[in-house]
């Protein structure tokens, strides 16, 4: 019934020359329709398959599955873009080598340029170092000369002093001189900061505060 209706509907919408066509759709009744009244209590008999036939069916089915699996795998390997890209090692290797050569060329250029700059820098540095060392040497010499001059000066002054030294011959005279001229190094300081020399001296008048 349903098939007829649907066929009619389809027929109406079809162009004239399609009259002879018979659409094949819904060849059986939909599964939600209830069981036909005549079949409600029917119990279908279990299919009786002999062991021999069962084995044969299993064999055929196994063969079919194996064949289908192998075909599927073959097609996957044959047409998978990802696997192909991985498997194509030769091409990958070639691409890598080309890329490496290109990068090396760029890098060699860069290295050559840097080497030039570095050599210049090192030469300049060496020159500066030599100049620095020479300057240092000169300074050292100059300082040595100065030291020598200072030493000479000290010796000269000492030589001048030699005449005033007390010799054994002059000892008595020197002692007498010292006794006759006693020197008093003591002194006192008053509240205003004046220095009063001598142990026995007394301040005569108020001296002005030293600023």
């Amino acid at each position, binding site marked *: 019934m349903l098939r007829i209706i649907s066929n009619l509907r389809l027929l109406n919408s079809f162009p004239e020359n399609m009259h002879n066509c018979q659409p094949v759709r819904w060849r059986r009744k939909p599964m*939600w329709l209830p069981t036909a009244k005549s079949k409600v209590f029917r119990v279908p008999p279990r299919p009786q398959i002999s062991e021999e036939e069962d084995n044969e069916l299993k064999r055929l089915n196994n063969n079919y599955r194996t064949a289908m699996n192998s075909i599927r795998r073959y097609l996957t390997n044959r047409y998978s873009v*990802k696997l192909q890209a991985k498997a194509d090692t030769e091409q990958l290797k070639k691409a890598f080598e080309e890329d490496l050569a290109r990068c*090396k060329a760029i*890098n060699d250029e860069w*290295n050559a340029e*840097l080497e030039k*700059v*570095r050599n210049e820098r090192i030469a300049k540095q060496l020159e500066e170092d030599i100049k620095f060392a020479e300057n240092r040497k000169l300074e050292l010499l100059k300082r040595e000369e100065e030291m020598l001059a200072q030493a000479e000066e000290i010796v000269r002054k000492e030589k001048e002093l030699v005449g005033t030294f007390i010799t054994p011959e002059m000892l008595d005279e020197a002692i007498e001189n010292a006794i006759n001229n006693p020197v008093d190094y003591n002194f006192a300081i008053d509240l205003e900061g004046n220095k009063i020399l001598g142990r026995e001296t007394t301040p005569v008048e108020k001296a002005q505060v030293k600023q």
Partner: protein
Amino acid sequence: MPFMIGPAPIRRTLQFLEAGRLILKDQIKIMAVHYHLVGENNKGTKDFVFWCLPQIQYKNPNVQIATFKNLTPSPFIRCFYETGDEMLIDVDGKSKEEIYEHLIRVVGKTKDVLEAESISREKKDNPANFGVGCDRQCICELPGQIPCPGVVPLPNHMRGKFIHKKDN
């Protein structure tokens, strides 16, 4: 804040690490940086190691990066390929930006390659995708999703057999 300890802790922020642009070629396995801590010609390399190495290591987790300090008079970078090749890059007296740009040009992946990779990764990496070449073959593999009807029948309220059922 413990995170702020050390010099320039910004180097450890995710935003900074992800801003790195140098993604080394797949064949490069080791990168060695030789430099000196003093000297005007080593300054750029020192900055490079300080600022850029964290980014490079973050972007290339499978590359071993080694630094050799105070062993050579002039700084250089060496990259070792898995094929046995080697790239020696002189970086004497160059600033860190110049070094970085040169490395991107010489040992980094090109823009085209990166774009192609990002597209393919996007396809593969999206965890919502399922099917051939994805993390899961079918959405039913996720707990909480409806199992495939071939394995477990759908609940009755989703099956035409029961929705459209007409009684006898």
